[in-house]
């Protein structure tokens, strides 16, 4: 009688390994059976030798062996830098919530389909996936998934071979690339048109219109202006936008000879803000009025910074305060204190959670994208205005996509949201 493998792997103490298709059999891990593994292997082999090839031993829960996981598939993780293979499997039929004895899965790996399997990871009950991130690119691996129940286990047939590799392009991000290209090209296109002298319309932004008035008020009152560029560092675009607007404000304070103070919470912001203010005073023909002490560091600590500024507001009673940048919970602490000392306050942030606070406590608030538009708005420089127009085109595309998506998704024609999944 010919031995015919019919589907299952059986391991005994790492000594013997036999693969039989469709036969559910497990071995107690710590039982004495392991010690007699070679002998048992012979016995089992002998038993199987006399069983007709089509026969399969049904799973017998009385033995406590779990049914093995089925359909084990190992494949290279796509769109990555290599060194990773993902293993998927169908849950063992014994992997049900009511079965408290079912522990989970162990994943074994080898470069050969029949020997040298070692455990490389485990997954809890209910999991059907594991990624092996310790592979060598180009080497073919085989995987076995072992279902563990109590002290018993059973194994799937080896899956594979699979080899990891790295890719040159992330196919899951094509949609992002298209969106990036559309927005970038439209921005560059409108910048070019603006450079050629085309007149571009920009709607009035009340908060920015009020900048002159706010600086003027401080000048008339002979009081200070405080400029707070947020609590984040120079790697945050909002801080960059805040420092950019500071340049415009500093030019006005230089012209009006109004005292300006910029307390900052990050060292690099201090260095940058100093450069910006110095340049603004130089360009306004007032380099003598500039001093490094106008921009100073308080602390990196969020609430320490808020406390420091509160103290300054209460003592100095500024006529005008600007908040431009990224803010967190300190926003209302600052704005309410500014309000209590009677300052005119203009805020701008792209932190959605802080906008309501600024709106409640400040005279004018630049909402989200208005902060980023401020530089273009204040300078009226065609190139910057062109970029705003390009940004608007991007918004139009998004609006159209939303409307189209609502129609297609509602009608059930196609799962439109799929197009926007970024991996």
């Amino acid at each position, binding site marked *: 009688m010919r031995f015919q493998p019919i589907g299952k792997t059986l391991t005994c103490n790492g000594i013997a390994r036999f693969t039989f298709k469709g036969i559910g059999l497990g071995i107690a891990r710590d039982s004495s059976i392991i010690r007699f593994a070679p002998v048992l292997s012979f016995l089992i082999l002998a038993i199987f030798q006399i069983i007709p090839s089509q026969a399969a031993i049904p799973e017998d829960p009385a033995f406590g062996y779990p049914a093995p996981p089925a359909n084990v598939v190992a494949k290279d993780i796509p769109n*990555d*830098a290599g060194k990773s293979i993902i293993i998927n499997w169908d849950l063992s039929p014994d992997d049900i919530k009511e079965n408290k004895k079912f522990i989970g899965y162990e994943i074994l790996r080898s470069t050969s389909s029949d020997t040298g399997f070692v455990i490389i990871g485990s997954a809890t009950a209910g999991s059907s996936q594991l990624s092996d991130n310790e592979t060598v690119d180009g080497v073919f691996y085989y995987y076995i998934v072992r279902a563990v129940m109590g002290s018993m286990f059973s194994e799937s047939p080896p899956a594979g071979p699979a080899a990891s590799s*790295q*890719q*040159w392009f*992330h196919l899951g*991000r094509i949609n*992002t*690339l298209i969106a990036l290209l559309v*927005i*970038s090209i439209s*921005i*560059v296109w409108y*910048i070019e048109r603006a450079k050629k002298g085309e007149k571009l319309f920009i709607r009035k932004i009340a908060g920015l219109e009020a900048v002159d008035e706010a600086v003027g008020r401080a000048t008339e009152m002979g009081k200070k202006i405080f400029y707070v560029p947020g609590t984040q560092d120079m790697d945050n*675009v909002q801080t*960059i936008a805040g420092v*950019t607007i500071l*340049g415009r404000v500093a030019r006005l304070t230089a012209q009006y000879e109004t005292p300006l103070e910029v307390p900052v919470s*990050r*060292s*690099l912001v*201090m*260095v*940058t803000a100093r450069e*910006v203010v110095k*340049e*603004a005073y130089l360009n306004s023909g007032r380099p003598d009025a500039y001093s490094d*002490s106008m921009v*100073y*560091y308080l*602390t990196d600590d*969020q*609430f*320490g910074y*808020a406390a420091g500024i509160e*103290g300054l507001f209460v*003592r100095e009673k500024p006529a005008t305060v600007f908040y431009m940048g990224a803010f967190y*919970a*300190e926003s*209302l*602490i600052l*704005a*309410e204190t500014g309000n209590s000392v009677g300052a005119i306050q203009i805020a701008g942030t792209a932190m*959605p959670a802080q906008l309501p*606070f600024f709106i*409640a*406590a400040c005279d004018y608030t630049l*909402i*989200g*994208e208005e902060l980023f*538009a401020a*530089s273009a708005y204040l300078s009226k420089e065609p*190139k*910057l205005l062109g*970029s*705003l127009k*390009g*940004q608007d085109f*991007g*918004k139009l595309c998004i609006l159209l996509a939303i409307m189209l998506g609502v129609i297609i998704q509602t009608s059930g024609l196609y799962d439109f949201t799929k197009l926007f999944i970024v991996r």
Partner: protein
Amino acid sequence: MRREIPLIITAIVGFTYIIQFFVPHWPFNILEGLLTSWMLIIFAFAIWLGALNLLKVSLDKISKRSRDWPYAIITIAGFLMIAIPGFLFSGGRRFQDPGTAFDYIYQNVYSPLSSTMFAMLAFYVASASYRAFRARTKEATLLLLAAFFVMLGRVPIGDVLSSFLPEGYRMSQMADWIMNYPQTAGQRAIMIGIALGIVSTSLRLILGIERSHLGGE
């Protein structure tokens, strides 16, 4: 050249970040981590810049007897109070371990002070709400009503007061509805606008069109 070099660095790093997002292959896959590590190192060293500036400004105030100079003494005292135990009396690199002098100051001085500052928000929210929530216009009235439902719906007393209403229309459910639909819709719109603003600003920075943060025009 003083301006050109930062602009070139910005352009190179900016494009590198964009490329590594789309190209998972080595060496692009390590660039983001590498550049960010550099950035963190620069930030770490820059803290000294700020700390020294703080000391310089405070000492200047004291020596010149500027206005409110006693506060500068408190600043310096506070600075030394945390720096000296942290550097010298807290077990070196394991200064954050429980039981060290630094940990004691952190738990008993820093934590209560920070918590107090954050707690002040409760008071400021009340005074700001009192001023801001006035039914001056139709929009302001809508805002006021939304605030009313959310504030009551977010606390158990809201459901007690509206227990006579049918299930689905009680305060907590109204608050959930406001948070889930009108609020989320507004948030989404603002977030889309912000995202586009960030793309546009970033592009201006990478292409060197926006250079006022470097002190230029």
